[in-house]
């Protein structure tokens, strides 16, 4: 019943998340942010995790990185295997050594993700000082090298400058450089281009994709922008209310979505040939995580919803070509 999206080639699995559950304690009870997420990333593969705000995509990533705020957050079940090790059983100290060295994260807003009182050179160099015990001078040279690598012009002149002196795109390049510094096996990019101008978005995405190829890293790209995904990702996992509702190789999903939610997402993208028409929007709002609807969490907004959807939670059905869909009526959706 658990269909993992087909891996194009048989590279070894790098990250394997199984049935992960995360809750947040709030005053009104437990908010179930992640409810049984299962996905895997092979070496050198790019997985795009797609979903609205609050769908649990970032929380899953934070759990993988081990930077979840505990409390109020709590991992209530599942396992996260990275290079064969179960990360959830590691001690915090060992876990910390994995971060930065073997997996790293790129955040959405590069301005707030860089320390305003340290120069970019100091922050980039810190990676080498912390993990490699390098001297400050060597670390600074490495910082210049990294800035060159992410194509920041005049790196040597700018290495002593502070984050606010860089433009948005340049700052995101610095974040990418920091994440790549120790050439980790896995990079998690949490909406890396959302805060950027559209043209800069394309440049940053291209850079990220190029570097990923060069270093043969696994990449988890978290986004709510379907446009960003298609060029870069190998496979897609669509999340809704803390679950994966559809997973598939990237191009299949655009051709024929197998879940009504994915279909709705694709239809709500404005198209050039639709000028003058009303934009499509999925009815209703994402569910309150304190009160996730019984049965299929999407049923209140679903055009196909029937009685069974209100009572039975759909498993992730196997769909041909290594896909998966958590919809009772995936066949109808796929062919209709």
């Amino acid at each position: 019943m658990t269909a993992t999206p087909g891996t194009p080639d048989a590279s070894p699995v790098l990250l394997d998340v199984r049935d992960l559950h995360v809750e947040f304690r709030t005053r009104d009870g437990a908010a179930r942010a992640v409810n049984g997420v299962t996905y895997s990333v092979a070496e050198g593969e790019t997985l795009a995790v797609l979903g609205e705000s609050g769908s649990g995509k970032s929380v899953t990533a934070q759990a993988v990185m081990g930077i979840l705020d505990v409390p109020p957050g709590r991992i209530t079940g599942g396992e996260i295997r990275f290079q064969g090790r179960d990360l959830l059983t590691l001690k915090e100290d060992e876990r910390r050594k994995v971060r930065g060295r073997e997996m790293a994260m790129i955040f959405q807003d590069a301005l707030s993700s860089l320390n305003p009182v340290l120069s970019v050179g100091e922050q980039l160099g810190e990676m080498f000082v912390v993990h490699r015990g390098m001297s400050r001078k060597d670390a600074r040279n490495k910082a210049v090298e990294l800035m060159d690598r992410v194509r920041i012009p005049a790196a040597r002149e700018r290495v002593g400058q502070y984050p606010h002196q860089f433009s948005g795109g340049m700052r995101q390049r610095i974040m990418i450089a920091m994440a790549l510094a120790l050439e980790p096996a896995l990079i998690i990019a949490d909406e890396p281009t959302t805060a950027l101008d559209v043209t800069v978005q394309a440049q940053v995405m291209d850079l990220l994709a190029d570097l990923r190829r060069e270093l043969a890293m696994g990449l988890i790209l978290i986004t709510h922008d379907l446009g960003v995904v298609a060029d870069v990702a190998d496979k897609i996992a669509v999340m809704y209310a803390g679950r994966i509702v559809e997973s598939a190789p990237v191009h299949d999903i655009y051709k024929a979505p197998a879940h009504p939610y994915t279909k709705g997402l694709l239809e709500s993208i404005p198209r050039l040939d639709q000028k003058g028409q009303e934009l499509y929007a999925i009815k209703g709002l994402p569910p309150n995580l304190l009160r996730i609807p019984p049965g299929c969490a999407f049923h209140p907004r679903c055009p196909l919803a029937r009685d069974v959807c209100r009572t039975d939670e759909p498993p992730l059905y196997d769909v041909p070509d290594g896909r998966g869909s958590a919809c009772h009526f995936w066949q109808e959706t796929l062919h209709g």
Partner: protein
Amino acid sequence: MPEPFYEPDAAVEAVAAAGAGGATDFAVDGGRTPRKTPEGGPQGTGPVGPDPSAASGERARSLWSDAWRDLRGNPVFIVSGLVIAFLVVISVWPSLIASGNPLQCDLARAQQGSQPGHPFGFNGQGCDVYTRTVYGARTSVTVGVCATLGVALLGSVLGGLAGFFGGAWDALLSRVTDVFFGIPVVLGGLVFLSVVTSTTVWPVIGFIVLLGWPQIARIARGSVITVKQNDYVQAARALGASNARMLLRHVTPNAVAPVIVVATIALGTYISLEATLSYLGVGLKPPTVSWGIDLSAASPYVRNAPHMLLWPAGALAVTVLAFIMLGDAVRDALDPKLR
């Protein structure tokens, strides 16, 4: 006014992204995403020209260098800084401007007014008021500086750790600070210090630190909690920084400004607190020379010989005012919201 954290173009970009992000053109036709990038545009390499901020030739600025530049141009800072510098110099070398001995008194000259060589006259014991006022600065500055250092150190370490790690220690610390806030300062002073027999300044400093640290602890805790939630602390964690490194390198430098501001303003109030306690007879005790002691001794004679009271009172007022003004100037310089 220099903006330490935000570039205007960053804001424009953010708005542009918000407006255009949803409109990234995409068609479901062939499963391909034609992303619009102008042909031959600067794709991949990014803008080649240096940033405007770099082009203007200014050196790398930080919050601190901005604050310093702000302070240098602030007349309030210059005036209070000069007064404080003068106070510090005469506390270290009082004999520079007062040649007499503050403890050498001649009862025959008690309560006499100003006369050549003794510009401020004599006090009730026949001691030279000018010399005593000059020597009193040393006590006040010592108490103020030592108490502030103690308060700042203890308060920011306890408050900072509680804010950073949270949990049970944080809850405990918050209740303890509540308890200390409930103790009236003067009453506490009367109770604690009346049993002390030492004539040095240390019991008074100790008392001020004991009652003062919760104020700084609260500020430091709040400040650390705010900074801790910043993405760059999360980012540092995601890149493998240890707790100690996050705290020392990422949290502390960004959280310390409010502590410095409050401590500077508090320094002035600690000086007046010392004078208050000494006036009440529980603070410093003779033979220590203190403005508070002199005020206390002079107050019964204020109608006949007001000079005995006015000079030390004036010195005290100017000193406290100078430190509070300095604190104000520092706050203006360090608070980015006021820019």
